[in-house]
């Protein structure tokens, strides 16, 4: 097994209930990214909404962040990030997004990464989430979560 899976991780280091919104109002990709960016700002994880979202939009131009099956993982590595974290949103309506299966998305996981991330642990927590996302049964469960607690439980699952 990979070295980074055997360490003791606590997913709560990068995602908390305050960083989840299961009722996003966004109707476009831009609105969804901004809504999640605002959550990061309110939780004190980024210094500036415009700076961070611009870095995310820049990354969006470099290639599709829709993974297929209704999930997108926009991400920004930015000077405006105070602490590496995730913000997760679920939209009421499917949103148009550049995806590997050309279908819209309704689960958006925004990765906010410090530009000079000295704490590799945080990056490894994000890696763990990425590994979970490679699992179809995880994606299926993710699309059906009803509560924030359920989502956090799902994310604390060890990849298997």
């Amino acid at each position: 097994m990979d070295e980074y899976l055997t360490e003791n991780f606590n997913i709560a280091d990068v995602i908390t209930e305050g960083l989840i919104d299961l009722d996003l109002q966004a109707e476009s990709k831009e609105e969804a990214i901004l809504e999640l960016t605002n959550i990061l700002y309110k939780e004190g994880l980024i210094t500036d909404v415009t700076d961070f979202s611009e870095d995310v939009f820049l990354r969006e131009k470099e290639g599709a962040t829709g993974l297929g099956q209704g999930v997108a993982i926009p991400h920004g590595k930015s000077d405006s990030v105070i602490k590496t974290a995730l913000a997760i949103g679920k939209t009421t309506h499917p949103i148009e997004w550049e995806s590997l299966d050309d279908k819209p998305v309704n689960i958006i996981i925004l990765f906010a990464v410090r530009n000079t991330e000295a704490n590799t642990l945080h990056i490894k927590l994000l890696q763990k989430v990425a590994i979970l996302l490679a699992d179809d049964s995880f994606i299926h469960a993710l699309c059906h979560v009803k509560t924030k607690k359920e989502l956090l439980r799902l994310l604390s699952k060890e990849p298997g």
Partner: protein
Amino acid sequence: MKLVAVVACTSGIAHTYIAKEKLIKAAEKKGHSIKVETQGTIGTEGKLTKKDIEEADLVIMATDIQTTGNERFDNKKKIKIATSIAVKASEQLIEKIENEILS
């Protein structure tokens, strides 16, 4: 067969690691061994050894950016793809390798 892969996406945060998992799942499902090196935002992990490379039947380069150490594969059979292919269609990729490249 024995496969090795190097994976690196644009920002080295998420796709690299999803692609790695997908490649491992697909290769193992088909009964092949695979070792994957990632070159991400925190550097290289799972670095391929000389032995890994020597023993490999094929090198999969799932890279969206310029990676380092490519000269290690100078005399090897290689296939170059985008990380998105590994994320979206790793099983088809392994099948293609079985059918076309190594036959």
